[in-house]
């Protein structure tokens, strides 16, 4: 999709009918829209999102009031947004007003209505993916700050179209339940029917537990986000003491997190000690006896015997002993020598004795290592645990100290923080219980399923139903496997794209990683996690979004039947650069148009001034300025202005006819 134009009528700040023509030139693929805060950048982004999907971004205030206030005052009750775009060489116009939604294919100036416009649009840019193409930059930092793990995971899943596939999984599970019910209707009394009923109940229990686990995960995420918000507020408090205590708590929390990982590691090591030393510890006595036995017998020349098989055979065949005496077959001496064969040493016996001794010696050696290994591990565990307890106690004290500060709002915040923290711990405990229950139920299902399969083979009617049930299980497994594999491959691709970008632009030798639980982290060359500055967090988020769009572009021609193909789409981004410093700003601004087909930057002077203009000027195709027109007098207010390409443009005007934002074109370079 390439956006061609936008037409707005009485939409939010935009009174009357106004237009923007986007640059479609691949070499100058940036359309730049300047606007100060509150003038209409976010409204412009939302006009496109609303036109396509009838929804707005979460930060868009009063989303139910879309009509322009001045128009409403004049009893002009109609408002609309039209967007024209190009797809596969054809031009389409999407037209949404309050009560209608239409899409037209434009051919030789004629407008042909597209059947089922919602479906059509979703085949070009699925609704789930849209948030990454029409992007609200403010608050974007949370993607990489670690507070929105689900954000990363959802992004990967959205870009692949998981919503539909997961609905399909639900439908398949539903079909299995229905099949079971049908079988029970036919055969009410047999054991098999009862077992099927039991299986159905276990599967419902498993599904219920799965949902509970998901709920716990969401709950934990939301609680963590709320805790982070409070921490942020305390960190930025006007009271120095509060700020200081919060920063101290941040440091302590990092220590607690590190110590917790030490305790976990020590517990794992402790468990491993059991498997490493169980044999040597528990066979201590038998090993001792074994070695003593071999030593004693060896000393007495019994193991191995001091004569070998060949010697005995030679005496018997020669019928002459080594002392020279004759040994006749049938004689007592011959019989005695013959008996020696059973104990005579041969190479096999010698090797067996050697092996037994070396194995017993190895176990004995292990045994010598065991006390130190146990002592060191247990000491490490106990030291880490006491340090952890001590630091956790300090965290409690810090919390009490903050509550003790004599400001009502601080006290309240800290109290709320404590409640949330307790809730979080409770949810983590609950989830552990559900995880156990899930595994346990799954084991029961597998066992019962095996029995049902075995029994069904003997009853023809049951066998048929069982085959159908097994079939649903097979397609469910096949779909789950595909989703898992694709998610993993996209995760790997994403991280490689992000690192390509970081290699170019981050000053330090950092690499990004997406952990198994979808947390986006920066690591140094020794693979240690690096605390991210606000700028680095934002940079990581922006890089992530660019990489995601690039992957969507690469997947645009994907042939799979299960997942949604990707999309080639414009990147419309409102307030992208936030807290980035000048070098990062310039680097990001320059790189985005290289990895994305069409870019629409909505920038305030804060984003624009500095290095951005120089970095992207040659790629800008069309340029607009949003001017705030005010019907009232200027009074003592000054006229705001923005400097673009050496020229100054006003961003506000007074004593105008109506209050509105006016879209003014200030440059066209293609």
């Amino acid at each position, binding site marked *: 999709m390439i956006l061609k134009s936008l037409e707005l009528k009485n939409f939010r700040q935009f009174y009357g009918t106004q237009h923007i023509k986007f640059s479609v030139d691949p070499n100058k693929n940036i359309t730049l829209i300047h606007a100060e805060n509150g003038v209409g950048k976010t409204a412009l982004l939302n006009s496109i999102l609303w036109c396509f999907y009838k929804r707005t971004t979460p930060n868009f205030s009063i989303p139910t009031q879309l009509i322009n206030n001045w128009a409403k005052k004049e009893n002009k009750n109609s408002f609309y947004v039209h967007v024209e775009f190009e797809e596969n060489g054809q031009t389409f116009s999407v037209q949404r007003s309050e009560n209608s939604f239409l899409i037209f294919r434009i051919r030789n100036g004629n407008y042909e209505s597209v059947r*089922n416009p919602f479906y059509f649009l*979703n085949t070009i840019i699925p609704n789930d993916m849209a948030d990454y193409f029409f992007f609200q930059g403010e608050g974007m930092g949370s993607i990489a700050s670690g507070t929105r793990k689900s954000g990363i995971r959802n992004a990967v899943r959205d870009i692949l179209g998981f919503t539909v596939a997961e609905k399909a999984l639900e439908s398949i599970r*539903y*079909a299995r339940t229905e099949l079971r019910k049908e079988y029970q209707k036919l055969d009410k009394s047999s054991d098999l029917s009862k077992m099927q009923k039991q299986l159905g109940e276990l599967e419902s229990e498993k599904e219920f537990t799965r949902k509970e686990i998901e709920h716990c995960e969401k709950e934990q995420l939301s609680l963590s986000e709320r805790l982070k918000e409070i921490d942020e507020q305390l960190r930025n408090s006007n009271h120095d003491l509060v700020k200081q205590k919060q920063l101290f708590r941040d440091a302590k929390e990092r220590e607690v997190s590190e110590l917790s990982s030490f305790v976990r590691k020590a517990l794992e090591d402790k468990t491993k000690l059991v498997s490493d030393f169980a044999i040597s510890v528990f066979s201590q006595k038998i090993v001792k006896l074994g070695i003593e036995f071999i030593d004693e017998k060896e000393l007495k020349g019994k193991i191995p015997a001091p004569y070998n098989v060949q010697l005995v055979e030679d005496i018997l065949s020669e019928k002459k002993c080594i002392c020279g005496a004759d040994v006749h077959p049938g004689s007592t001496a011959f019989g005695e020598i013959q008996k020696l064969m059973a104990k005579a040493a041969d190479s096999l016996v010698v090797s067996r004795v050697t092996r037994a001794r070396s194995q017993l010696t190895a176990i004995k050696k292990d045994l010598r290592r065991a006390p130190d290994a146990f002592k060191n591990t247990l000491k490490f565990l106990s030291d880490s645990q006491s340090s952890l307890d001590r630091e956790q106690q300090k965290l409690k004290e810090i919390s009490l100290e903050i509550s003790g500060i004599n400001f009502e709002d601080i006290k309240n915040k800290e109290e709320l923080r404590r409640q949330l923290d307790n809730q979080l711990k409770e949810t983590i405990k609950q989830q552990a219980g559900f995880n156990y229950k899930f595994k346990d139920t799954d084991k029961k299902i597998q066992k019962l399923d095996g029995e049902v399969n075995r029994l069904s083979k003997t009853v023809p009617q049951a066998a048929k139903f069982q085959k159908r049930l097994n*079939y649903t299980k097979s397609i469910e497994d*096949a779909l789950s496997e595909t989703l898992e594999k694709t998610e993993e491959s996209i995760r790997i691709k994403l991280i490689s794209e992000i690192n390509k970008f970081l290699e170019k632009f981050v000053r330090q030798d950092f690499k990004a990683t997406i952990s198994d639980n979808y947390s986006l982290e920066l690591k140094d060359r020794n693979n240690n996690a690096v605390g991210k500055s606000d700028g680095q967090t934002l940079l990581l988020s922006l890089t992530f979004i660019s990489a995601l769009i690039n992957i969507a572009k690469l997947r645009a021609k994907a042939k799979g*039947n299960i997942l949604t193909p990707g999309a080639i789409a414009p990147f419309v981004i409102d307030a992208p650069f936030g807290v980035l410093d000048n070098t990062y700003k310039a680097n990001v601004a320059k790189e985005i148009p290289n990895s994305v087909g069409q870019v629409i930057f909505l920038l305030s002077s804060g984003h624009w001034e500095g290095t951005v203009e120089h970095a992207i000027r040659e790629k800008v195709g069309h340029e607009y300025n949003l001017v705030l027109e005010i019907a009232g007098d200027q009074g003592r207010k000054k006229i705001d202005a923005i400097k673009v390409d050496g020229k100054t443009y006003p961003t506000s005007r007074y004593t105008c006819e109506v209050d509105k934002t006016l879209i003014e074109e200030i440059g066209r370079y293609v």
Partner: protein
Amino acid sequence: MTDNYGQIKDLLKKELKKDDSESRENSYNHILHEIIKMERKCLYGEKSTYGKRKEILHLIISHADEEDALQ
């Protein structure tokens, strides 16, 4: 000898498992595609949830019986 035999057996097992997983994905691709198509129709309002579930159930039954007959 025994070790080599064990290794070869493991390799064979892995290969068989791989083939099994790949062929399973391929053989169910058709029905999964049909189910996904129905899900999309439901998502975009062309089909009710009830209608979709009913059709998916029938689809599964007919595919399962067809596979059974082939065996």
